[in-house]
């Protein structure tokens, strides 16, 4: 399974025997693994890679605990699916973890097959997320190449305004609007308005506020 080989499972657990056991189990399922003993060690030595992966995080680790590490990762903007494992998880802990977007919350000793299944699910999610992120990044780069006027026209076009209306909004002649529109379609590599709207959604472009436009005037 080439997909799985490409994925990387990160284990953060301070218990050496649990580390070794998980390492062994995941090895037999052909996952690539990286192991850390504490949140600190993990944060110091790990950088996000484009490769898909997931994090198996022991709740009770020294200094920064699991929940805190999860929060820290979110703060840093790393969207790595997290599977919590705990020796004595409580309901409030699991609720908090799930709220913070954990993939799952497993109580030790756990069923290995379900762990493997969850890991797969997590990797799938990661991979999907990664692809989306990649696409998004591409669009963002393209969008960044547009001139400011073209970006303004982009925002107004996807709002559904006609060329005449856009010209009126921006205080330019309709012909110029047509030129900008053609240029941006070309730069964004799209052929239809529908495609442009989809990209706008992906990029979560803020609609052009009149204030911004008015300030431009």
């Amino acid at each position, binding site marked *: 399974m080439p997909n799985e080989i490409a994925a990387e499972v990160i284990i953060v657990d301070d218990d050496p025997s*649990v580390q*070794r*056991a998980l390492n062994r*189990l995941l090895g037999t399922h052909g996952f690539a693994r990286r192991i850390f003993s504490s949140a600190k060690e993990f944060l110091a030595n790990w950088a996000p890679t484009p490769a898909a992966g997931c994090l198996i995080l022991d709740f*009770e*680790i020294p200094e920064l605990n699991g929940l805190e590490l999860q929060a820290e990762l979110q703060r840093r903007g790393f969207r790595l699916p997290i599977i919590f494992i*705990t020796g*004595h998880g409580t309901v409030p802990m699991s609720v908090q973890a799930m709220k913070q977007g954990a993939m799952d919350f497993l109580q030790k*000793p*756990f069923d290995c097959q379900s762990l493997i299944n969850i890991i797969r699910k997590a990797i799938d999610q990661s991979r999907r997320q990664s692809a989306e992120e990649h696409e998004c990044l591409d669009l963002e780069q393209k969008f960044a190449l547009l001139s400011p006027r073209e970006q303004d026209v982009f925002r107004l076009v996807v709002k559904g305004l006609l060329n005449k209306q856009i010209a009126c909004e921006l205080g330019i002649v309709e012909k110029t609007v047509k030129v900008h529109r053609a240029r941006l379609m070309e730069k964004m590599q799209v052929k239809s308005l529908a495609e442009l709207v989809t990209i706008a959604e992906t990029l979560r472009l803020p609609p052009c506020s009149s204030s911004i436009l008015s300030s431009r005037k």
Partner: protein
Amino acid sequence: MRSQLIPGILARVAFSCLLAACICILHARDGHAADAQKVLILFPEEGWSAPAYRTVYNAIKSAFDEADQTQITLLGESLDLYLFPSEDRERALADFLRKKYARERIDLIIPVANSSINFMLRYRDSIFPGIPMVYCGEVAHGNKRLEHRSDVTGTAVILDIAGTIELARVLQPDLRRIAVVAGTGLVDRYMLSLFHEVFKDYEGKLELLDLAGLPLDNLLERVSRLPASTVILYLALQRDGAGRIFSSSAVQKLVSQTANAPLFNFIETALGYGSVGGRMTQIYAMSRKTAEIALRVLSGESIASIEPAVISDNPAMFDWRELKRWGIDESILPSGSIIRFKEASLWDVYRWWVIGAFSFICLQALLISLLVNNLIKRKRAEEQTSKFRQQLAHMSRVSTVGQLGQNLAHEINQPLAAIRVNAEAAQKLLEEDHPDLAEVYAALGDIVADTQRAREVIVCIRNLVKNKPPEPTRLDLNRVAAEAVQVVQADAASKGVAIHLKLEADLPAVDGDSVQLQQVILNFLLNAVESVSENPFPPQLVTVKTARESDGRVSLCVSDTGPGIDPETAKRLFEPFFTTKPQGLGLGLSICRSIAETHGGSLSFGSNLDRGATFCIRLPVASNINAKHSTGGPIDAE
């Protein structure tokens, strides 16, 4: 000038004469005062040695001494009247006395007893003309002729013969016979006549055995075989039937010793010479009274104005030794009886010593038993306390385990998880076409190690929960500390607290109970973790440090980076039931201190320089003897 000189000389002469006269008067007074008054006591017979006369003399002498009449010279004269039975001889005696005292001024004469009194009444005018006479011990029977004489005064006594016979009847209820003993002397015959006068009343009631006038040998032989129900009434014996002269009291004693019946008499001074007793004529009181009268006369009182005194009270007196000899019960004696010569028994003499010693011993025994009882009670109380302490410690441990429940679950779940994961990994490995057997083997090895680890956790919990008496063994404090840290590690981690161990490598062993010491360390650790978790600023750190102290003891200190202890709390930290935690019992530290103390150690705490607090337990290093076999270890001392 001259005319003035003469009266001056005259005055001087007159003054000198006056002075000389004064000196003469003073001298004369001095001379008069220096002249002692002389009192002559005249004893009739038997002389000074007779007990009665000795008593008379001593009584009068002591009365004079007491009256502080040091000026009185007491002279004595024994008339030995039995030597002078005829009037010629009496005159010769009087003549002798007159010549003897011709140059001597006598101020007062005291004739003693009837014969002496009679003699002096006859011869006073020729021997001691005009000298006042105070007689002593006139027997007041008969004509009582002296009562109405104005030229003499003195004391009279009553001889209570009848009373003495009555007394004998009381003491001997079956009394049928009276053996009367008297001599042939003047006094003897006088006494006998008095007796016969009295005995008239007893004719028919009592039989009279007349032993009067016998020679002494004969008398003694007779009294030794008296018939039953007989008492001897001893009157006087100064001269026996054979004409020999004796001391009456000495004879009385002899008679008593020989007799087979009790002897009675009625003269106080003869008591003690073998007499059981009798209604006693009081010689001493009589003599004192005589002396009193004599002193009045000497001080110038007129004899005519002094009424003769009669000593009419004749108390019942007994000789305790004779009562015993004849087996007479003291309880039958009339009330008011006087018992003399009571031989004090050991009990009588040492009664207070005996009572004292006995009381002392009793008190001591009581004290000892009280102390022993106290000791037993104390021992019991101590045992009880130690039991309570153990139970309390156990309770506290159980509560600790309860508090750690989640973490202990984690401690067991951790190896269990590892075991499961390893087992499934091994299964998965074996499912492969070419299983990696080395990896399977490694997984199985890990499983074995993890089961051991789970077991250790369970043993640890079981020890904490088990309520067993403390068992002193030789311990490595580092190991105990490490185990305790392992128990709280998960709890600390979940609270984001790191525990650092700084254990000294060559720590000497200590003697103690591992469970109890672990309890102390656990308590420290839990408090520290909780304290640190209250403090949101890093580092959130608990340090466990063991060290060898300079005083040779071993210390274990747990420091935290928490908010520390405020002084108000610090004061009450070791108080039982003092707690700052809402769910706390407040017993943890007080139990810990008691554990430290039973281990011969101590507990202390302090605030850290930067932040947080440090709690330390200090324990003595194990003794050289193997602690397992030692009976005097710190735990046993409890």
